[in-house]
């Protein structure tokens, strides 16, 4: 896999977080955002009702009553509070999550994305993704730019069943940072060592390149 590592993709997203944001991190690469050293003072929210959690618990020091939405044992910050599941999703649905960061199978230039059901499957794994996607102030997506066979994951339209329509504001892949812009993606910043041609070839939608293209600091 060329371009950014998984942690660097998470870093590129986490550096966009702003003071006082309430942030919900999805399972997988998004969780790595909490490893990024940033100066913004943010509050992590987890679907299972933990508000204000901190870094992962050191091995051997796990609190068996305390996990984040990915089932990982986490620590609590001094401002932490615990609520039940209905109140936790009250926070989500009422628009209080400033950003939700999620993985996905596909993202479309329309701002649609798909992350709950694979092709041909009966059933799916939605978890809190649809609530978060429909209600958070911002949806940021982190995903590998292509499938293992090289097929693009950034598309004009999603082929898989979508999680929410027209909500994605920012996408981080190993190739760069992108904004869905309707019929095309805007390239916001490019990964070191990646070329615009590589991106165009690996993207299933038009890509607009800005005049002064910045490179992602790693």
């Amino acid at each position, binding site marked *: 896999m060329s371009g950014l590592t998984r942690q660097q993709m998470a870093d590129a997203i986490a550096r966009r977080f702003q003071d006082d944001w309430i942030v919900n991190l999805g399972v997988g690469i998004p969780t790595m955002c909490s490893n990024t050293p940033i100066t913004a003072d943010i509050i992590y929210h987890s679907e299972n009702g933990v508000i204000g959690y901190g870094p992962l618990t050191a091995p051997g020091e796990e609190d068996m009553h305390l996990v984040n939405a990915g089932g990982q044992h986490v620590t609590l910050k001094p401002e932490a509070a615990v609520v039940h599941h209905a109140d936790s999703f009250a926070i989500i649905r009422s628009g209080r999550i400033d950003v939700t960061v999620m993985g996905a199978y596909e993202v479309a230039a329309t701002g649609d994305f798909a992350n709950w059901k694979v092709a041909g499957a009966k059933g*799916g794994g939605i978890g809190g993704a649809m609530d978060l996607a429909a209600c958070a102030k911002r949806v940021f997506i982190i995903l590998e730019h292509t499938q293992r066979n090289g097929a693009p994951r950034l598309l004009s339209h999603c082929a898989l069943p979508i999680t929410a329509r027209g909500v994605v504001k920012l996408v981080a892949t190993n190739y760069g940072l992108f904004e869905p812009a309707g019929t095309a993606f805007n390239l916001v910043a490019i990964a070191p060592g990646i070329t615009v041609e590589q991106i165009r070839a690996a993207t299933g939608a038009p890509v607009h390149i800005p005049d002064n293209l910045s490179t992602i600091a790693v």
Partner: protein
Amino acid sequence: MNRRSKLYPDFPSAIHGIEDGATIGFGGFAMPGVPFNLMQALQHSPARNLTCVANTTGGAALPRMPDIGHLVERGMVRKVICAFTAATRASEQLPFTKYHESGEVEAELVPQGTLAERLRAAGAGIPAFYTPTAVGTELALGRETRIFDGREYLLEPALPLDYAFIRAHRADAAGNLRFRRSQRNFNPIMAMAARIVIAEIENDIEPAGSFDPDDIHLAGIFVHRLVVIPPAPAGLWPQLREPKS
């Protein structure tokens, strides 16, 4: 007190009388707050044609603890209502999946927040409500939607339960419960949605009045049966997950 004691001596007696066709909700999220011991006892009960409500059908992570999948494997389940009815990775498969794909068991896939709110609605006497979640997705196909203030919402019905199986950290003799940390999750709202609430408790039952009335997470009026979880190995306790490969 003319009141009958809520304390039951063991898990089989605590789950007695579950009728065929009952709808049972199971609290818990990941390991914390899952009523493992009641679920294990249920596997050995004669109840059939159950509708099971929980965050997940289970079985995706190791060690595998008692879950809905075990009930499905024993042919006890007619339908599941969950936020996860299949694995999120194409490379994984839940134990439930083959029963679902064969049509042996029905599944209703519900977004987690909608699941929580449908339970909360049942416990609050609200028959239906509107939510923005799932609008424009496959889950909304053929469903009733409505515009409020220019935004589209989906009508969702309450999800009442016959029984809730829950797990709490502490209980008093009146059934007042306290949960610890993320153990709370679905447990209080499952309880409020149910006609009969059966709770496994991690500590000995304390006398009524042991908790400050301001610090009770679920009032005793919602809780009908209590059973104390014995130490391992007789009792089941949350385990550390093996890291995902």
